[in-house]
């Protein structure tokens, strides 16, 4: 049963063709069978999942009106707080941290009666592109176990790809949902900044972070997005607006839709196989009535630099809270308060987190602020304006999600610059606060290729519709690889 999409399971549950307990047992069985190899989960909440599933079945028997997600197993990235269930950020610093509260997205899913199956692996504090910086374990790409699943939401993408759950939540600061979705061959949505509450998401770069869904179909991702979006008083940046039912409003009509192809995303460093797959998808959309148009976003070449300045600056400030005093890891031997801070942080954080904290501290330090942070913030405005212009002429932009397919475990971990360059196609979207969706658009051998659809703010329905039309024409994205 684990191989079905969430929408299929939801319909089967409604028709009482199966029970939530059966669905949950099936996915738990799959987790037991393959997670030794895939390594997606940090915590599996087996008892809690079965208990919740039983409650859903009882509610259904009692004739209660239930949400479409009722009884659907969902995995959650381990930087989203879950009351009573460890939330580690894949760091030694939070190894034993059990949140006394749940994130707003979790409370919303609880009201939908979802089945919490566990917490999934990630790069430490969401800093990385391969899930290799996790303190606990390596997660492997289900399509090729020698390769990375991408990052930082590598666990969220791998568990969906491997059929361990139909849906998961990830977070995306510079591509952390879309890159792993691309590498693992699943659908991943980075929503418009401010559409999903960040309350209870452990902060990395607060002006860029956004929680979003991953699944094996566009409808599933639309369904989970509908369940988590909306204004929240606990997040002052969350937008005040109404949202449609994205899954119910899906339609595959592409007639007259203008699809922009920004030429900067097809240049140097993007592999031919990836370019070919994206263009093949573009022509498929064209055949369905869309109009292709070449556009230009000239500041793209500087975006990665601005991203690493802004995100590291915010991280250096956000991660100052991990000091060994109120919660989290505390070093054993110290001599006074400053020594406690320094030893705790030096022993509790991994190298990548230290690099980002130091980079952020450097760009904000006296004498350097104007040269780095201020210029990056000005470039952010320029990039936003360029996107705005592009959306005057286009409905959707089509780009690669990543310059290439998944790389080998260990291949880039010793070279931070090579690792950072994998985010080149995704960071602009966070800088401009836009929504973007990654969908599978082909394979290079066993390795999936992802296409990124970028839209104007709050145009998620349009992105989902475009992806839905493509999904229909290729016969669906739900392909679970053989794990071997």
């Amino acid at each position, binding site marked *: 049963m684990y191989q079905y999409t969430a929408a299929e399971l939801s319909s089967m549950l409604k028709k009482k063709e199966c029970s939530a307990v059966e669905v949950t047992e099936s996915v738990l069985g799959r987790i037991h069978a393959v997670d030794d190899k895939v390594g997606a989960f940090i915590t599996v909440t087996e008892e809690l999942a079965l208990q919740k599933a039983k409650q859903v079945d009882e509610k259904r028997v009692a004739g209660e009106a239930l949400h479409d997600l009722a009884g659907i197993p969902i995995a959650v990235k381990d930087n989203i707080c879950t009351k009573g269930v460890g939330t580690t950020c894949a760091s030694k610093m939070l190894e034993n941290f059990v949140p006394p509260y749940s994130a707003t997205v979790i409370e919303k899913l609880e009201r939908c009666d979802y089945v919490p199956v566990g917490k999934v692996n990630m790069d430490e504090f969401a800093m990385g592109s391969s899930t290799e910086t996790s303190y606990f374990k390596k997660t492997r790409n289900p399509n090729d176990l020698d390769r990375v699943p991408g990052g930082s939401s590598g666990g969220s993408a791998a568990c969906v790809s491997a059929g361990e759950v139909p849906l998961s939540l990830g977070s995306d600061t510079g591509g952390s949902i879309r890159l792993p979705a691309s590498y693992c061959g699943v659908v991943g949505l980075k929503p418009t900044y401010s559409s999903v509450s960040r309350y209870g998401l452990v902060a990395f770069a607060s002006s860029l972070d956004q929680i979003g869904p991953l699944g094996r179909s566009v409808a599933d991702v639309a369904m989970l997005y509908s369940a988590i979006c909306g204004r929240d008083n606990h997040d*002052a940046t969350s937008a005040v607006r109404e949202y449609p039912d994205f899954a119910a409003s899906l339609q595959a009509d592409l007639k007259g839709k203008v699809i922009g192809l920004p030429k900067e995303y097809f240049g140097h460093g993007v592999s031919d196989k990836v370019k070919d797959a994206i263009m093949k998808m573009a022509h498929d959309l064209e055949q369905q009535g869309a109009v292709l148009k070449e556009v230009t976003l000239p*500041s793209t070449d500087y975006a990665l630099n601005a991203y690493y300045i802004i995100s590291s600056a915010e991280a250096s400030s956000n991660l100052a809270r991990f000091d060994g005093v109120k919660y989290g890891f505390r070093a054993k031997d110290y001599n*006074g308060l400053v020594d406690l801070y320094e030893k705790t942080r*030096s022993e509790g954080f991994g190298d990548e987190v230290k*690099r980002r904290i*130091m980079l952020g501290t450097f760009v904000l330090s006296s004498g350097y602020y104007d*040269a780095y942070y201020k210029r*990056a913030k000005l470039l952010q405005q320029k990039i936003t304006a360029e996107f705005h212009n592009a959306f005057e002429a286009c409905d959707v932009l089509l780009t690669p999600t990543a310059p290439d397919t998944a790389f080998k475990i260990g291949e880039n971990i010793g070279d931070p*610059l090579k690792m950072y360059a994998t985010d080149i196609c995704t960071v602009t979207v966070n800088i401009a606060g836009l929504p973007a969706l990654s969908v599978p658009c082909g394979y290079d051998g066993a390795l999936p290729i992802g296409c990124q659809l970028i839209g104007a703010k709050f145009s998620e329905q349009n992105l989902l519709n475009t992806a839905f039309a493509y999904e229909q024409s290729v016969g669906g994205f739900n392909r679970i690889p053989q794990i071997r």
Partner: protein
Amino acid sequence: MIDIKHIAKLSRLCVTEQEEEKFAKEMENIVAMIQDLPQLDDTGALMDPNQPMILREDTAQQHFKRDALLQNAPQTKAGCVVVPKVVD
């Protein structure tokens, strides 16, 4: 040259001599990459006027019980967090 010892101190991190050399080299490379930014006009505000922040009413609410919060503290005594002596 980036003074890693100084940056580490500001970041409340300590680095061994071996790490200092490694981080210094990596940081030099990263900074060489990120410093390539265009010179842009800086008139114009850095706030997004279309996304004003709306703050909730400043009213006291009971969110957490003390015990629940202290469960995650590394060291506690008599309902308080224990820290090293900070004043003589």
